[in-house]
């Protein structure tokens, strides 16, 4: 905005700005000239853009939509929805409310949708699904006064928390799944509060996921940097062989690699047996290196290592030896030459590799599922659980959206600090 203002004819520029031959501001002309070449580049990637739009942006959009939209309740409970709309949040359910509930329960019975609605409410208040199915089964027998009749069927209907959840669910659009994804909920009085400590899992899991991913990124950097340097400086003949070794993990199935780690790391595995056989540890002190965080860290560091090595290599290979030599001839020790000259020149590779490994690690699923045990699970494993087991797709979508937002934030930070233009992936 500031730029626009200073380019406007009526604005008085703080200092004399340069003009092109025809009197236009130089900066604007430059921006225009660059925009043209950028547009041309866009044209070239148009097919890819369409492809991504169809196969990527659309499904992600759907996921985002699902995370804030769930009409299982509102679609099937018209009478109660009307009552919720007519009353203030926190209103005690009166006879009219119970009458509406009774009418809706009859509808549920007719349409056989009690399970669907029960599941929706059950997301936020566990145990309430059976309430819906059992009461709906006998809905035809309900007679006024409905309050007594329904409570006679099941005391559970009097729970104020249930009414709060139903009120929330009465609108198809809700932020409750996001609240749930960060361990928050609406209380009976409609305020936002933390869920009870025994059910606070997601925030911790997010934190663990980011911490482990950061640790794995650092480990791959520590292991990968010397390898990449070796690859970049060896004569081509040898570096090609080494490169094959680095790429070998790419050519074996993820499952095979993970299973190999199980063979190596388990309590009766190769490493433990060797340690026991050499007397370094006693037989009852076998190390727990798998089915816990350690297992996840070891296996994922191995699997993601090539994603760090390759960007580093592609940055290091074209650095001619003369830079370090120049530094050395100017009087720098080899450490100083590395730190002040070589290392800064490889920063784009480190950043690219780090970004790549971190983003891959944050979304990793299969390896933690196989070797992570309970303490080595990451957020993706829980997303998968909600997709396939609890069938709470909205919560899965909310969790996934938060993950996506975190990755985008990281990307933005990267762009601000290093610049996406400097990204070199290979």
């Amino acid at each position: 905005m500031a730029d626009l203002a200073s380019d406007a004819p009526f604005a008085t520029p703080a200092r004399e700005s340069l003009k092109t031959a025809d009197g236009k501001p130089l900066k604007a002309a430059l921006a225009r000239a660059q925009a043209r070449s950028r547009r041309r580049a866009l044209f070239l990637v148009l097919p890819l853009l369409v492809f991504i739009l169809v196969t990527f942006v659309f499904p992600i959009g759907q996921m985002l939509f699902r995370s804030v939209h769930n009409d299982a309740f509102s679609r099937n409970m018209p009478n109660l929805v009307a009552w919720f709309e007519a009353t203030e949040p926190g209103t005690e359910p009166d006879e009219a409310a119970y009458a509406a509930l009774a009418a809706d329960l009859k509808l549920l019975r007719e349409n056989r949708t009690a399970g669907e609605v029960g599941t929706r409410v059950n997301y936020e208040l566990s145990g309430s699904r059976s309430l819906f199915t059992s009461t709906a089964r006998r809905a035809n027998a309900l007679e006024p006064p409905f309050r007594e009749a329904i409570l006679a069927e099941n005391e559970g209907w009097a729970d104020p928390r249930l009414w709060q959840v139903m009120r929330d669910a009465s609108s198809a659009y809700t932020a409750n799944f996001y609240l749930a994804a960060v361990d928050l909920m609406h209380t009976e009085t409609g305020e936002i509060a933390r869920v009870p400590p025994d059910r606070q899992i997601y925030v911790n899991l997010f934190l663990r996921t980011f911490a482990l991913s950061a640790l794995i990124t650092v480990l791959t950097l520590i292991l990968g940097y010397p390898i990449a340097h070796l690859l970049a400086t060896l004569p081509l003949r040898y570096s090609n062989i080494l490169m094959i070794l680095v790429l070998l993990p790419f050519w074996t199935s993820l499952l095979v690699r993970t299973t190999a780690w199980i063979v190596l790391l388990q309590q009766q595995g190769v490493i433990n047996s060797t340690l026991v056989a050499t007397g370094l540890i006693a037989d009852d002190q076998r190390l727990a290196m798998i089915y816990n965080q350690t297992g996840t860290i070891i296996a994922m560091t191995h699997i993601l290592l090539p994603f760090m090595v390759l960007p580093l290599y592609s940055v290091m290979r074209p650095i001619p030896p003369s830079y370090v030599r120049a530094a050395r001839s100017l009087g720098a020790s080899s450490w100083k030459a590395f730190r002040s000259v070589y290392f800064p020149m490889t920063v784009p590779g480190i950043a690219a590799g780090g970004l790549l490994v971190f983003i891959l690690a944050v979304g990793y699923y299969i390896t933690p599922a196989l070797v992570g045990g309970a303490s080595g699970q990451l957020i993706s494993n829980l997303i998968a659980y909600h997709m396939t087991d609890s069938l709470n797709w909205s919560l899965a979508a909310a969790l996934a959206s938060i993950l996506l937002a975190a990755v985008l934030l990281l990307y933005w930070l990267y762009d601000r600090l290093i610049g996406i233009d400097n990204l070199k992936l290979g």
Partner: protein
Amino acid sequence: MAAAQQVGAFVEFDRVQKSYDGETLVVKDLNLAMPKGEFLTMLGPSGSGKTTCLMMLAGFETATHGEIRLAGRPINQVPPHKRGIGMVFQNYALFPHMTVNENLAFPLEVRGIGKAEREAKIARALDMVKMGKFGNRRPAQLSGGQQQRVALARALVFDPELVLMDEPLGALDKQLREHMQFEIKHLHENLGITVVYVTHDQSEALTMSDRVAVFNDGVIQQLAPPDELYERPANSFVAQFIGENNKLPGVIEDVDGGRATVRLATGELIDATPVNVGGRGSRTLVSIRPERVEYLPERIPPGAHTIEAEVLEFIYMGESFRTRMRVAGSDDFIMKNRNAVGQRRLQPGERITIGWSPQDARALDPL
């Protein structure tokens, strides 16, 4: 070893050999002694081992055999950063993430020189190469010639006594290159530094150097001042590599002190100065510089040897003429005449008599 040490030599290579693969010698038995303040150029075709020699001197390659001494001190075991040698690389090797000022500050910082003195030295070095206004630019924002100057300033800013340059002007266009040749030469004269300069461009070597070491195949073929190199090449390679050269193959008929008689392929006998030949009956190449050949009777020096020639081609080159002709069976004999009063265009097919002084015909090894 110590006996071989020359008194007063600043840089010395003493029987230095270098092999990268253990099978071939890239540098074979190199002996070289440079006095302080000399501008010495290593000249030779690509792959002749010049860079390798420079890298051994700078400390980036180790000599497989022999000793390198700097100011009388053996430096084989001294790491590069303790040698205090300034170096200019062909690709300039300016640190891309630093500004020009930071690039120049680098060698001063590692030497622990204070900020004020640092700034003074940087300003002086940049002024020296006329780059004073560019201190805050990054290397990528400079032209090739400007980067070259900065690289030069960076190699000089910490006042090294010895500066090595590996084809520093190779990437510049001709005009800029010639200009920079003079500037480097002036810097050398003004600062009194010792320079080892590597190039494959013979005119560059001739214009800049106090002495030139002509390399071929890992061996110094001749080490001499430019004029001697040009006028008295020690062997056919040097004669061929430096400047233009006519060579007439023949057999030694007779050698007598400072004069040899050579029988050419066509049977003609000519006189030549023996330089690098065997005795009677051995094969030789007689080398004659094109500009020492004349055809106008009044210009042919007295006592000159004359021979028949047939003009094949005449090229007008402005300040001079080049005539290609057939002489003693060889089709690429070149005569170069200055565009002076009395000269005329020769016509192809014309038969003329050419001549040269026997001192200018040098009987060399047959290659």
